[in-house]
């Protein structure tokens, strides 16, 4: 490891670990707020003696349940997040290379494992003609790298090597740890939101019809407060997945530059990655197998969003990847620097 990689790598790992801790804390606190908020709403709503739900609110049951559920979700996501992500893309593990392409992939992965100094991750294939690749995993020692069949068919050996080296860079950075976690969280929250939506719909119908009759008898001066709390609670419930998505994008954009640089460091061939990125960019988008939640794990935006090509605060907040042209330009600048130049490629003879 050179000093360049040493200083940036260490700082990056620390930053990723810190972000992971913050996200865990924010996630659990958010659910606690939602849960205890719901309890407060129910408490105020039932102060008149009529409870909109089948039990009498006193002990903050929902708060405790949601906080415990959030903690369990975090634990479960940490352990099984990678499998979920891979399952969502329909990836198949490459355990026994048969074709020349598969053998080449396995060999190139082994070579890069040596260059990167990490153990070789499990390899997966996604059946999709659009070239793309992503890495996922909870622990650098137990990671996964997936490539699309389109990637295997489009790139030559050096370019494939460069793309894999980029993914190894993410694994070494602990980017995969953080981003797998986020991807799995996004998926879980969306699932829960759907479930809770149904619960609220049926529960609200029952509660609303009952309390409407009795409120006319002089129910609660807590009425407006309840409504305000309820509205806030519903808004936050809708906002939660959006916030998580923005978080996911925020953590990822600048990572790509570092992973590109690490790829150049591992292969000593930045032009190979530049050439690979050009091929990936010019291929037909989108990669249908890779859904939005896992977009930030890939080497190129699988949805081919035009926002990715812009710079500035707004694009930084919502785009998953930096502009491809800029990534290629940086790599070419590295490549044409004297440190990586091959011995004398002869200049073209003038006619």
């Amino acid at each position, binding site marked *: 490891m050179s*000093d360049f990689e040493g200083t940036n790598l260490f700082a990056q790992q620390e930053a990723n670990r810190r972000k992971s801790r913050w996200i865990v804390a924010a996630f659990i606190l958010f659910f606690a707020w939602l849960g205890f908020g719901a309890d407060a709403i129910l408490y105020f709503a039932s102060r008149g003696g009529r409870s909109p739900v089948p039990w009498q609110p006193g002990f903050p049951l929902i708060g405790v349940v949601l906080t415990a559920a959030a903690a369990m979700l975090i634990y479960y996501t940490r352990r099984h997040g990678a499998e979920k992500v891979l399952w969502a893309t329909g990836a198949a593990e490459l355990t026994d290379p048969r074709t020349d392409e598969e053998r080449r992939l396995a*060999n190139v992965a082994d070579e890069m494992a040596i260059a990167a100094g990490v153990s070789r991750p499990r390899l997966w294939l996604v059946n999709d003609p659009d070239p793309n690749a992503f890495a996922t995993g909870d622990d650098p020692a137990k990671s996964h790298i997936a490539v699309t069949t389109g990637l295997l068919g489009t790139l030559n050996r050096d370019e494939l090597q460069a793309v894999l080296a980029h993914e190894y860079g993410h694994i070494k950075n602990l980017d995969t740890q953080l981003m797998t976690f986020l991807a799995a969280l996004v998926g879980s929250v969306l699932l829960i939101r759907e479930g809770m939506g149904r619960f609220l719909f049926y529960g609200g119908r029952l509660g609303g019809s009952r309390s409407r009759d009795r409120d006319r008898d002089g129910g609660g001066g807590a009425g407006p407060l309840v409504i305000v709390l309820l509205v806030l609670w519903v808004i936050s419930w809708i906002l939660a997945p959006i916030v998580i998505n923005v978080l996911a994008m925020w953590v990822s954009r600048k990572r790509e530059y570092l992973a590109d640089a690490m790829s150049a460091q591992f292969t000593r061939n930045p032009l190979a990655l530049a050439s690979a990125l050009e091929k990936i960019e010019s291929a037909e988008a989108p990669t249908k197998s890779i859904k939005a939640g896992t977009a930030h794990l890939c080497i190129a935006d699988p949805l081919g969003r035009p926002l990715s090509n812009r710079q500035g605060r707004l694009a930084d907040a919502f785009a998953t990847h930096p502009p491809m042209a800029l990534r290629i330009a940086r790599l070419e600048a590295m490549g044409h620097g004297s440190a990586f130049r091959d011995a004398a490629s002869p200049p073209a003879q003038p006619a």
Partner: protein
Amino acid sequence: MSTVILLVIIAIAVLWFISAYNGLISLKNQTLNAWKQIDVQLKRRHDLIPNLIETVKGAMNFEKETLEAVISARNKAITAVAGANPQNVAGAAQAEGQLTGALSRLLAVVESYPDLKATANVGQLQEELTSTENKISFARQMYNDTATQYNTRQQQFPTNLVTGMAQAVPAQLWEITDEAERAVPKVDLGFGKRS
């Protein structure tokens, strides 16, 4: 008051000493590990070669010299690598460099036997050899990077005060000794010939 300051200074010095010593030990072991990695890949190559020779021998009756060059280079390399370690790299580097040269000459000759090339075995073997060459060169790269870090740390002040106690010795880098690999192609721009 001054004893407290003195104690604090001593405590800081001791802590620094421990971390410098441990840092050197860690790098020494990383260097050794990287060296072993090269060893593993070199052995892989040594083991692949007999297989390759067997596969091409039948079809390449007129290329006995090339084949024998590979076999003898391999045997020399095996003995050279057996006695090598991070403080004694040059012999192994040279022997392996010569083996690389002999192998590439053999593979270049194989190119001129299209029937042989078309055999599935040869294709697979070529991929295996390419992959092994790459692995050797990446292992070598990793070793050189780690060894450079180790050497730099040993030379930097104040860590260089600790090297004796840590028994830290500079590690040699794995240089390219095969002249063919280093040779810069001659470029003739033909200024004199232009009319």
